[in-house]
């Protein structure tokens, strides 16, 4: 007997539960915010990220140019048309290891969540996903109209998408594994900048 059939067999041999617990449909109302944008910015700030509200990409560009991490970056991989410079072309990258030297990356986020400051980034917008984690600094760009209140609303939208790698990013990489002292910049990005456009 294979382990597969042994495990499934053991699970099926269990005494029947009195009545299978119903699966809640999760359609009930969950918390919303009177000013979701303000909440998003406050939460992301509290976890070490920075939010820039920019009516246009031009305004975002000005704010980006003022960022020391961006000014000092030698290798920049920009994936958002109309924002920032770029001297790393992802379409020519066949081996993700070569992204090791990227200082600053700019990528598109598809959704922002007010309750926890998370931004959803999907692989089709960042063809080599390693970029998101290996870059020293990361900037994400999301439309103001993509902001949702909570994770339930977020998944309701994401379920429409195809099954591709995606990640909620909320703040820069961090750790508190040494005596509970918060240190920003564990393995991934040392800073996270989120531009909310619109």
């Amino acid at each position, binding site marked *: 007997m294979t382990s597969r059939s042994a495990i499934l067999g053991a*699970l099926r041999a269990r005494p029947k539960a009195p009545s299978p617990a119903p699966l809640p449909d999760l359609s*009930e109302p969950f918390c919303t915010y009177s000013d979701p944008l303000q909440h998003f910015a406050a939460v992301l700030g509290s976890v070490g990220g920075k939010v820039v509200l920019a009516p246009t990409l031009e305004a975002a560009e000005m704010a980006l140019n003022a960022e020391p991490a961006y000014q000092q970056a030698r290798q920049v991989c920009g994936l958002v048309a109309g924002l920032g410079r770029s001297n790393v072309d992802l379409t020519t990258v066949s081996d993700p290891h070569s992204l090791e030297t990227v200082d600053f990356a700019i990528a598109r986020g598809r959704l922002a969540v007010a309750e926890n400051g998370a931004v959803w980034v999907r692989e089709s917008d960042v063809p080599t996903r390693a970029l998101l*984690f290996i870059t020293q600094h990361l900037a994400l760009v999301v439309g103001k109209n993509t902001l949702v209140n909570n994770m339930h609303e977020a*998944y309701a939208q994401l379920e429409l998408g195809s099954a591709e790698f995606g990640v909620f990013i909320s703040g820069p990489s961090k750790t508190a*594994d040494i005596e509970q002292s918060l*240190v920003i910049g564990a393995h991934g990005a040392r800073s996270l900048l989120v531009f909310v456009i619109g």
Partner: protein
Amino acid sequence: MSAELVHLSPATAHPRRAALFVANDERMHWHDKALWFVRQKRDKAAQSVPEWERLRELASQIKAHTLVGLPDYLEEFEAKAVALGAEVHWAKDADEHNAIVLRILEGVGAKRVVKSKSMLTEECHLNPFLEARGYEVVDTDLGERIVQFRNEAPSHIVLPAIHIRKEEVGATFHEHLGTEAGASDPQYLTEAARGHLRDKFLKADVGITGVNFAIAETGGFVVCTNEGNADLGTALPPVHIACMGIEKLIPRTKDLAVFLRLLARSATGQPITTYSSHFFGPRPGGKLHIILLDNGRSGISQSADFKTSLHCIRCGACMNTCPVYRRSGGHSYGTTVPGPIGSILAPARDANTYQSLPYACSLCGSCSDVCPVKINLHEQLLLMRHSVTEKGFLPKLKQLSMTIASYVFQRPKLYAFLGAAGRTLGRLLPHRWVNNRLNGWGRQRDLPPLPAKSFRALYRERNNGQ
């Protein structure tokens, strides 16, 4: 853990190990405070969500539902994951799990493995298994790397190095990473680890991760970290092995909303982990293996009393709040998962070895109050005491005292006589006769002054006075 502890009698294993931890009073209080701080952060985060209690209820319902239909959901998950291009393996125990990992490594000629925190591979003792066969296995979570350098096990499932002082981390890093002698600044030490581990990520042939949630309807799964180690560990090497217990399944994508709202808030008081990565099949050009491990879980799922312990999402909140865990340290449990939940999971699998764990509990119930999936932990710990007793694992001395107590309590006159005798002798006898080395209960405490009259005598007097 020193060698003599390996042979501890199972009946006293936890108290004996706890005694070693408690012997350093200053460290014990430091440890207690560090965890209480995390508990307080959890409270703040929980209170910021108006529907917190409702979320716990929903999470409990989803997990209960999934457990009932688990075999069907596992098959659905497998079919969907395979359709996405993953290879799915089934392991009935730790040995088979490790053998599968080895076969995969051999198949791709791998030598260097980076691992992101996975308590499941700790449970299977994968590291020593692979290291004995010449593989380099690097734990990439900072806390896990610290304990790996020190040849220790994690003492907490979310905060693996919570028992180690920064000066000790400094000494460990000085030895292994060449940091400055005497350096203890967390920022400096973390930066050193970042450089060291980047190199390991870049050179790795295979990345191994755990799984926080696997979704039956899509065949995808979610891994949550703050450091980004699971992401670097899977985005660079061409092969990803994801190891999960069969209880990690949830039915639908939308169920993730409930669990991701609960997990990080319960664990560390964060609104969500920095990275919540959703994997669907291998990355372009890569390979993905998913190992589904039983290792006793199907057995626990048959137990009416303990099956809901499989609802656990490994947040660690029960540890942070537990007055025994905070003061005895994670290593005192001698298990991969310590604390209240570990004191159910371990003896549910092996009652003999872990018979002392259900007693590492004051039955205060705080663990049940903070559990994000509403496991009735303290009630199960009491039931586990019954269970280990029924299996014949009550120590002789406790058996004897229980038998005597039962005999006396069934005989009111004998009880009254012994009570009177005890009150009189307790007052008249020298203190060292009443409380001495032989009385284990009195080692750190003393009896209160004994009353002159029994409760029954006082009750009679009061009624006569009316």
